[in-house]
């Protein structure tokens, strides 16, 4: 077990940390497979409205690789298929019959794993809609099954500060986790398991599988940050990563032979310590969040998620909901406010004197967009030592070569550059658009 030294990141305490308990929600009336959190997908629908589906039936596949399927997490009827602008698929909603009729998939035992059954595993995972659990750097796109990854990074912590904690996700699933590690070894001998420092001691029997411990501030546990800090050569840029809950899902599928439907979600609110929620994959947001007023937004990650509508459903790659106020305010003489409760990474508010008080956040910009003044606040906080201001200028100049040289593809889209920018430039958006454009050029 090794400790990764990361010095830069978001070190402010935020209020709304979920507590260590777990509650189970009643079966949702509808579930959905969302396409909004799937990177670069070009979906091709395989079902029509009102069609009956079983748990594990494919709903749509990816046109780029039709063998990669997205399957139904419940048994029922396809209620509606929602499209957004330019007929972009948003989600496939299913009426939940609340009684599972599973499609069965072949199962494997520990002894099977002693032989090379990689090809069988790949086919199995693709049919069961779990291959996409593997994401491949640098774009965090769905992994290419015909490539051998140099390493696979398993992250025990999720995308947000308040994502479900590993102890709860692993509880009663220890054997599945260990089996999952065995499965990963079919793909690549080098498995990296990372966990936040504060959770390491609570992991019990799986402690021995942890290879790297990371500091306790966001986004040290992000696989992209971990990769940047441990990679030794450019071959490792094509590593894969997988989240721990997906690993457990894969291992449940392989042992039990049917699609695992349970997910653990957190729904956080400032000043509340909400419990973790056990529910079905693809549950409706409103069931998880409860009723909210019009001034509240729900995101699936304060720094790197999306804004989730109240009537939509949680996606396959999401396990955190943050509810926080978004009321546009016009504070009188706000620019000279002493700011006892204003969260900031700078030292221009009195709040920097009380580091241990959890701060409350809201979804407003706190200012107006201005030109970049080269203050390097973004560079000072970037966990992977990028210079977002210079990359932004290179991208504005359409100089993708220069942006790549500066390390654009290392960007893990943690959102800290745009968080900290005093000129309120949408740096994260600009960088991720730059990456997307490069991805499209390449494809």
């Amino acid at each position: 077990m090794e400790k990764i030294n990361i010095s830069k990141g978001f070190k402010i305490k935020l209020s709304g940390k979920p507590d260590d308990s777990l509650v189970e929600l009643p079966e949702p009336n509808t579930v959905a497979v969302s396409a909004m959190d799937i990177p670069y997908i070009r979906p091709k629908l395989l079902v029509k409205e009102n069609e009956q589906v079983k748990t594990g039936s494919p709903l749509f596949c990816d046109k780029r690789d039709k063998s990669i399927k997205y399957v139904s997490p419940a048994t029922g009827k396809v209620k509606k298929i929602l499209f957004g602008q330019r007929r972009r698929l948003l989600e496939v909603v299913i009426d939940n019959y609340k009684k599972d009729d599973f499609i069965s998939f072949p199962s494997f035992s520990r002894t099977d794993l002693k032989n090379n059954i990689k090809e069988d595993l790949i086919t199995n995972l693709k049919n069961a809609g779990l291959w996409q659990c593997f994401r491949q750097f640098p774009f965090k796109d769905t992994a290419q099954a015909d490539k051998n990854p140099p390493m696979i990074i398993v992250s025990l912590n999720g995308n947000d500060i308040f994502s479900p904690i590993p102890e709860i996700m692993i509880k009663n699933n220890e054997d599945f986790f260990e089996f999952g590690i065995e499965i990963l070894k079919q793909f690549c001998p080098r498995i990296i398991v990372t966990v936040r420092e504060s959770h390491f001691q609570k992991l019990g029997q799986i402690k021995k599988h942890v290879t790297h411990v990371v500091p306790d501030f966001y986004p040290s546990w992000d696989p992209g940050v971990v990769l940047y800090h441990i990679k030794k050569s450019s071959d490792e840029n094509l590593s894969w990563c997988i989240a721990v809950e997906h690993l457990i899902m894969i291992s449940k599928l392989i042992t039990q032979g049917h699609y695992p439907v349970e997910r653990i979600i957190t729904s956080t609110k400032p000043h509340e310590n909400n419990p973790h929620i056990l529910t079905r994959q693809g549950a409706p947001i409103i069931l998880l969040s409860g009723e909210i007023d019009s001034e509240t937004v729900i995101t699936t990650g304060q720094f790197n998620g999306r804004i989730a509508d109240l009537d939509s459903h949680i996606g396959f790659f999401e396990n955190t909901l943050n509810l926080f106020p978004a009321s546009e305010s016009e504070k009188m003489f706000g620019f000279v406010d002493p700011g006892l409760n204003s969260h900031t990474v700078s030292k221009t508010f009195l709040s920097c004197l009380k580091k241990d008080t959890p701060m409350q956040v809201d979804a407003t910009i706190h200012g107006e967009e201005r030109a970049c003044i080269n203050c390097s606040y973004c560079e000072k906080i970037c966990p992977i030592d990028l210079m977002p201001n210079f990359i932004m200028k290179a991208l504005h100049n359409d100089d993708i070569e220069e942006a790549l040289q500066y390390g654009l593809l290392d960007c893990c889209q943690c959102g800290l550059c745009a968080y900290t920018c005093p000129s309120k430039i949408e740096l994260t958006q600009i960088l991720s658009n730059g990456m997307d454009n490069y991805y499209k050029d390449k494809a």
Partner: protein
Amino acid sequence: MNPLKKIFDNLEPHFTGTGKYKSIEPLFDATKTLFFFPSPKTKFSPFIRDNLDLKRYMSFVILALFPVLMFGIYNTGFQSGLAQGQKFGLIESLLVGSYYVLPIIIVSYGVGFLWEIIFAVIRKHKISEGFLVSGLLFPLTLPPTIPLWQVAIGISFGVVIGKEIFGGTGRNILNPALTARAFVFFSYPVSMSGDIWVATQKTVDSITGATALSITGSQGKGIITALTEKGFDLPNLFFGVIPGSIGETSALCCLIGAAFLMITGIANYRIILGGIAGLIITATLFYLIPENYDTWAHAGPFYHLCAGGFLFGISFMATDPVSAPGTNTARWIFGFLIGFFTIILRVVNPAFVEGVMLAILFMNVFAPLLDHIVIKYKTSKRIPNV
């Protein structure tokens, strides 16, 4: 509801949309946002944003300039009194000082903002806060006797040529306030050198308005003796009760401002510390050369540090993030070379008694090159990912 808010809400329709005064919307917007801090909803991730914005960033520089400004006003009044053979008290000095200094500041802000508004209207963008600082920095670098029309022309040159033709705040190569000063310095040398450092109605004969840097020793008399005889001993230079540009005389006030900027992280400490190190090292080297005992070459690092406008320049001008380099190593080099060139200009070049303005402008030009070299080196250290 807040009555002030009501006024703005009532006025808003006239300045936006199809309103009668739509063309000067930036002016309305700037005034409104000065009173009411805007905070619109975030549209893209990250959904939470830091509370620091550019208005606060710039107002912190103004805050740091406050001691310098107040002392500048006091000193202008006090020197004026001395020239008339009187010793003014605190209030009297401040009043007399205000009489000379405030018009310069008002002209600088007024004319400069006019240009800012014109460009904001033409380019249809919001007025940037950067000028709040430039508009105050420029008057502080001027002698209190400067004719107001020269202030107006100077700041016009600084804003238009120094900043707006490059695209506005954030895109300028040179520091606008120093560009303005350089313009006045070279265009109106009569107003910027010689016995112009004390503003007064009538002068008592024995007083000359020279600055410390224009003094040299004579045969057999070292520079420090000469300085002390004229009243420029180290404590006077440090506290700043001497003639000079409005804001530059007090090393103490500049250091207070610099400390404030460094602690709050608004100015990059690397530039300030690098600059002071560069100045001290270069001055010491010249001090160690035997010869030239009667010139500033032999004044030693502390006299060089406290005399002239170096501390003012390095704390407030060189740390302007736009015209300084954007990488940390380059900032050290940038600061160091400003210190170095300041001494070189003061000691070796007899044409200019003060070197800091030219040193900073010179290094402004080289800042992108320094950045380029540092970034090249940094990217060569990265594991390539293409």
